[in-house]
């Protein structure tokens, strides 16, 4: 681990990535300390202001400080990303292992399900889900979980299949080792690294998806400050002031840069062959 960090530091882009991710995590965690204003406090008189020392990124149509909303929005983004990706990871790992290790027919069924989910346009699926349960943070999480399970599941399945064919696994099986033992002792350690990298590179996608859902009015509940809702407000306000949409874009771009560069750097260091299994 220490070695990894040391080597990332040798890669300028990886270092930038690490810095941006750390910045995001820190500012999200410390939002309540750093933020100059309450992110949901209305101040109608001060609405739609440009950037100033008083409001670093200006204010929105309700006079809320955009800088504070961006900071707290980071919390929401992190929360959505972490919760949804970890749930998707868990389910994906289990399903992928079952598909890879289980009987052929089960493998076929699971892969068919994965393909079916992938074949649905995401927005279509999101619309139906939102119509079903109404827009909220947990709806966003559910949508992301279901649409990203196939990606993780496929990776795990591929790894499982390749490890399963290894001679030492065959030998262990012949000696009567339990499937559980093989999966947990041999497979899990092998997939954790790649999955971790894959997941970290998925975080921006998840955040962007939330932005898209917010645009269609299917994101988090107001007045929760999310980057997507800031962008969506900004979209509607674009003819009045460009600042809200800029305020919403900046963190999105920075975080994507951060996670992508960090992820690529990690991937290059830990497992250059990872991409192949995706």
């Amino acid at each position, binding site marked *: 681990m220490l070695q990894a960090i040391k080597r990332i530091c040798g890669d*300028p*882009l990886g270092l930038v990535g690490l810095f941006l991710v750390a910045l995001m995590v820190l500012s999200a965690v410390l939002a309540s300390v750093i933020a100059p204003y309450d992110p949901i406090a209305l101040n109608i008189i001060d609405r739609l202001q440009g950037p100033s020392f008083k409001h670093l990124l200006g204010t929105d149509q309700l006079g809320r400080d955009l800088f504070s909303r961006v900071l707290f929005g980071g919390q929401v983004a992190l929360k959505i990303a972490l919760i949804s990706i970890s749930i998707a990871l868990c389910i994906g790992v289990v399903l992928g292992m079952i598909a890879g290790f289980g009987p052929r027919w089960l493998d076929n069924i699971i892969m*068919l*399900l994965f*393909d*079916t989910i*992938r*074949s*649905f*346009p*995401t*927005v*279509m699926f999101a*619309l*139906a*889900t939102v*119509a*079903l349960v109404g827009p909220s943070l947990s709806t966003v999480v559910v949508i992301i979980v279901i649409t990203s399970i196939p990606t993780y599941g496929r990776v795990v399945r591929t790894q499982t299949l390749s490890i399963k064919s290894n001679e030492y696994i065959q030998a262990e099986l012949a000696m009567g080792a339990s499937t559980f033992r093989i999966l947990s002792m041999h497979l899990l350690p092998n997939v954790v690294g790649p999955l971790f990298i894959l997941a970290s590179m998925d975080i*921006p996608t998840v955040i*962007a998806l939330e*932005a*898209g859902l917010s*645009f*269609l009015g299917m994101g988090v509940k107001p007045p929760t400050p999310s980057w997507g809702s800031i*962008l969506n407000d900004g*979209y509607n306000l*674009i003819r009045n002031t460009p600042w809200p*949409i800029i305020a919403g*874009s900046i963190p*999105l*771009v920075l*975080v*994507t*840069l951060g996670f*992508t*560069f960090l992820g*690529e750097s990690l991937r290059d260091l830990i497992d*250059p*062959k990872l*991409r*192949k299994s*995706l």
Partner: protein
Amino acid sequence: MLIYCIKRIGLGILIVMLAVTLLFFMIHLVPGDPARILLGPRATPELIASMSQQLGLDKPLPIQILMFFANLFRGDMGMDVITNRPVADIVFGQLPYTLSLILTAIIGAALIGIPLGCYSAINRNSLADRVTGILSVACITAPAFVVALYSLLIFAVYLKWFPAVGAGEKGDFGDQVAHLVLPAFAIGLSWVGYLSRLVRASMLEVMGENHIRTARAYGLPERLVVFRYALKLAVLPTVTVIGVGMGFLLSAAVFTEIVFARPGLGKLIFDSISTRNYPVVMGSVLVSTILFVISTTISDLINAWLDPRIRASL
């Protein structure tokens, strides 16, 4: 090969059927009585009942599903109850707009993104590589609706280079192309970034492989090494990603079709779900899943064409 194709088609049909069945269940869990929404505020309960019957909503779910497939088998996708037109007409009327949009976007993205990725890989860690890297990744994030909005403001309003809304005059190819540029840019931009990163990564990997060293050791010109020996292998994962990406592009098309007031399948799906126009929802989702299955199959076939090893395993 033939067996492979038959298998693919069978699997495709299975996926489509499964998707449609899932959709049926989802639709029936979703609140909002289609008959009522379709008829508007003035509808009497009798009218609503009669509309429900027309929609076949009064029958049990499995019967509805079976009826749908039975009709589909006869080539009938049902009727749109609002405009009283066959759903097939509606969906296939909108399909060309979305197809042209998606294809323009993805082909444009590939034409820019792949060379960009190659360039970055060849000049690894140079300033140009870093700059294109940062720009590409920044492009990946840009939400389609934000890019759409800004491209409209810049290129349609201020510069007036391109028209703003619609899909152009029927039969006027030049006009249609002019209407295609901005929407395709809006959904293609993130793909430029994505593809260039992808190609860069796979290019780097391929360039490290032994056979590239061999090619160089035989003194092949670098141009030949990169474009004939390395690129052909490096685009393999890109082709797969593009195949799967058609599904994502359909989602992105929803945003651009709304912002550009452009006809198309994405907007049709969005509108028909909001209005609970179920026959149209079913028809358009059916077509979009078929589209997905076709595009992944095509990408597999292209991969097989590029890579003899895959061809051999078919």
